[in-house]
């Protein structure tokens, strides 16, 4: 089991440590509901160092990224970030990821912790054009500082203006006295903020500076449990739950990161274009419980006649919306807003209705 550079900080802050994607990670500190609220209303800090990072460099960098990812990386400018996914050649998804454009011949791919080895193999197997790939996952530490007060709090640690940065952009800057920190206005909570990438040797210094700078804003450490409830309230997909090797980007409502332009050829382009034109038989939807109950990953979704129509891919009590919420694949005919579906909870079919994302509207 690996530890991130922040492991001792988590223990010192009272984090409850659990195994996650091969790492010992904090699942919670003071409690998932309180942590959730801290991020929605103030500022919270997540250790996301377990995420993987691959450099893509050289004259073939863009050609490689255009081939392996579904989004159109030619639209990126220096300092811009893009959400994307790797189609798997069989209509499924290898992983979802972020693509950072540093310059025309330098890109950074940020992938899920649990998929680092799989993604690395996949990228290399698809690199017929000869881009220069490097896996630096073990060298980089990453903090997500999230919440409406995050940028204001982090501004104290750098002379470069960050409070006016556009969503999904990044800068290299000197941060907490550390040079060349990658500061990115990204995150997976829906509450704004940033993600900070530094080398492992600077991690402890950066962490302590972040916590210190945040005191006046009520900054707190946040665990994986609240990371999950925060993303789910926004309807953001979690790889391994809501998307995987058997779900297509079109089924998962990720058409917006799947770009069918003439200039861009990519893995599964024809197959996905066909799905987009002719429709898919099932779709990922969000639903809210009408009857009292909490949907959970793996619960059955049934129709009014108790026929199985799908499986809950993610579910929880939404700490901010105060109701049972979930996501799952249902037949396209039942995917429209307002459709009634039933969730099998302990052998009872409890009523729910399909709603638009996000569940949490701030």
């Amino acid at each position, binding site marked *: 089991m690996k530890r991130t550079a922040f492991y001792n900080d988590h223990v010192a802050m009272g984090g409850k440590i659990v195994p996650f994607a091969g790492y010992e990670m904090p699942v*919670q500190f003071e*409690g*998932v*509901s*309180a942590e959730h609220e801290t991020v929605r209303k103030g500022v919270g800090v997540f250790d996301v160092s377990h995420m993987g990072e691959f450099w893509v460099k050289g004259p073939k960098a863009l050609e490689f990224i255009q081939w392996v990812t579904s989004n159109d990386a030619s639209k990126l400018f220096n300092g811009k970030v893009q959400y994307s996914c790797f189609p798997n050649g069989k209509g499924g998804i290898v992983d979802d990821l972020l693509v950072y454009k540093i310059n025309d011949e330098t890109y950074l791919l940020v992938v899920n912790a649990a998929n680092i080895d799989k993604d690395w193999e996949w990228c290399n197997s698809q690199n017929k054009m000869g881009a220069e790939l490097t896996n630096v996952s073990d060298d980089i530490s990453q903090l997500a500082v999230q919440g409406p007060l995050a940028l204001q709090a982090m501004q104290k640690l750098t002379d470069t203006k960050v409070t006016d940065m556009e969503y999904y952009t990044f800068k290299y800057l000197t941060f907490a006295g550390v040079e060349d920190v990658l500061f990115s206005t990204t995150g997976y909570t829906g509450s704004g903020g940033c993600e900070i990438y530094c080398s492992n040797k600077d991690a402890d210094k950066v962490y302590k500076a972040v916590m210190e700078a945040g005191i006046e804003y009520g900054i707190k450490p946040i665990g994986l449990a609240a990371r999950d409830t925060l993303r789910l309230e926004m309807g953001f997909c979690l790889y391994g739950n809501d998307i995987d090797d058997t779900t297509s980007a079109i089924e998962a409502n990720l058409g917006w990161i799947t770009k069918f332009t003439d200039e861009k050829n990519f893995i599964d382009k024809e197959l996905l274009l066909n799905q987009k034109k002719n429709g898919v038989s099932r779709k990922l939807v969000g639903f809210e419980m009408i009857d009292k109950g*909490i949907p959970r990953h793996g619960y059955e979704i049934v129709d009014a006649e108790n026929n199985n129509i799908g499986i809950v891919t993610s579910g929880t009590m939404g700490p901010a919306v105060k109701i049972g919420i979930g996501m799952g694949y249902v037949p396209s005919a039942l995917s429209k807003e307002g459709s009634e579906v039933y969730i099998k909870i*302990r052998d009872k079919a409890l009523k729910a209705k399909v709603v638009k994302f996000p569940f949490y509207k701030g």
Partner: protein
Amino acid sequence: MNIKENYRYTKDHEWLNVVGEEAFIGVSDHAQGELGDIVFIEVPTVGEELEKGESFGTIEAVKTVADIFMPVSGEVIEFNDDLEANPELVNQDPYEKGWIIKIKLSNPDEVNELMDAAAYEAFAAH
């Protein structure tokens, strides 16, 4: 870890507090801490005669769901209604206001098979 002195405990972290021929049942402080923020408690078994070890309901925390089991055999005669509106009472006061059900004991001898506070403290510490 907070443990109530004169209660009895199970390996599943339920507690039992015998009052005459009846007993109150809840979950230990250790259990509520492990579960995290409790948001819903369902007890569909009021009025039923259940055996020791049978599930009488479920506790839903934000991130997990757990069955709760009968420490001894008995008839479920009451569910703590306060938990419907305030399930967090189980987190805040697991041994008093956070009691979950009241039962009528059908075999009082079974009580002696449960751990006392000292034995439970040693058990839960592992």
